[in-house]
C-alpha cells in the first residue's frame, strides 16, 4: 500500500441523512479528499470488505498475506445517530477488526452529550465533531491522515529491516505490496 505513488486520501463518510451526506462530501472534496459516502454502518462495513465471515472468524488465518480490504480507505467519518447500526457500533466493529483497526475514525453528532463523546474517544475515535460540521473541523483531519500514512510506511520499513537481518539465503519471503 505504501508503494503506491502519493495518492489522494480516500475518506469514507457514513450518514443516514442525505442532506448531511451531501454536505460532508462537499466539505471533504473542498479539502481535495476522494470521498465515498454511504447511508449506513452495514454498507460501510460492506465497502470496507468486512463481510459476515470476517466477523464470525475467531482466529484469522495465521498466514494472511492478502490485503483483506477491497479498497484503500484512509479515514472513516461517521454520524453517531443512525438507525440500525449506530456510529458507535460501527466504531467498535472497526476497532475489533484486525484489518481495519488502524484506520482513523471520526464521529459526528448533532448532540453535545459529554458521556457520548467520552465513550467514543475511549473506544478509539480520533475526533468528535458537533454538527453541522464546518470546514475548520475538516481541516483537523489532515494530521490523522498523515499519521496513518506514516504508520503504513513505517510498518513496511520495519518489515524490510527484519528481512534484511535474517541471514538464511534460502528464505524466500513473499509479500504483497
Amino acid at each position, binding site marked *: 500500500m505504501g508503494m503506491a505513488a502519493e495518492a489522494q486520501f480516500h475518506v469514507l463518510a457514513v450518514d443516514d*441523512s442525505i442532506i*448531511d451526506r451531501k*454536505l460532508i462530501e*462537499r*466539505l471533504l472534496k473542498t479539502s481535495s479528499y476522494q470521498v465515498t459516502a454511504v447511508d449506513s454502518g452495514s454498507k460501510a462495513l460492506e465497502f470496507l470488505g468486512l463481510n459476515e465471515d470476517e466477523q464470525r472468524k475467531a482466529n484469522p488465518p495465521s498466514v494472511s498475506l492478502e490485503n483483506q480490504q477491497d479498497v484503500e480507505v484512509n479515514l472513516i467519518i461517521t454520524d453517531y445517530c443512525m438507525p440500525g447500526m449506530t456510529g458507535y457500533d460501527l466504531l467498535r466493529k472497526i476497532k475489533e477488526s484486525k484489518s481495519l483497526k488502524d484506520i482513523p475514525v471520526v464521529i459526528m453528532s448533532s448532540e453535545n452529550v459529554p458521556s457520548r463523546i467520552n465513550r467514543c474517544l475511549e473506544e478509539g475515535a480520533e475526533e468528535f465533531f458537533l454538527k*453541522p460540521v464546518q470546514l475548520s473541523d475538516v481541516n483537523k483531519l489532515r494530521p490523522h491522515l498523515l499519521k496513518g500514512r506514516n504508520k503504513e510506511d513505517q510498518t513496511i520499513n520495519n518489515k524490510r529491516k527484519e528481512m534484511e537481518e535474517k541471514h538464511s539465503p534460502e528464505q524466500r519471503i513473499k509479500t504483497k505490496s
Partner: protein
Amino acid sequence: MEVGQMQRQWVEYIRSLFMEGFLDGQFLQLQQLQDENNPDFVVEVVSLFFDDSEKLLNDLTKAIDLKGTDFKRVDAHVHQLKGSSSSIGAQRVKNACIAFRNYCEEQNIEACFRCLQQVKQEYCLVKNKLETLFRLEQQIMAAGGSIPTMELSF
C-alpha cells in the same frame, strides 16, 4: 431593472432573512462551499432539504394521533428534521423542532400537535423565502451578473 439594482435587492433580502432569524450562519457556510465548479450547490442542498422535510412532515402528521401516538417515533422524525434544518441554516425551523422534542419527551400530545403546526408554518415560511431568494439569483444570472458574496457583518 439593471443588474446592480437586482444585486442590491438580493443583499437587502438575504440580510432581512438573517435579521428576522430565518437563516443563521450555517447558510453562509453553504454559500462558501459553492464555487465555479459547484455553482448550484446551495440550491441542490436546499432542494434535498425541501424533499426530505415534506416527507418528514407528512410522516409526523400521520404519527400524531389523539387515539395513540408513538412518541419515540415522532421524536425520531423531529430529530431528523432538526438535524437537516440545522445543516442548512434554517434557524426558526430548527428552534421549533427543539421545542417539539421537549414536548415529545413529556408525551404531551396536545402540545405536540401545536408544535407540529408551528414547525409546518416555519417550514412554509422559510421555503417561500428561499424560493424568492433563488428566483432573485436566477434573475441576476440571466442578466449577466453574479451573486454578491455575503459576509456576516451584523
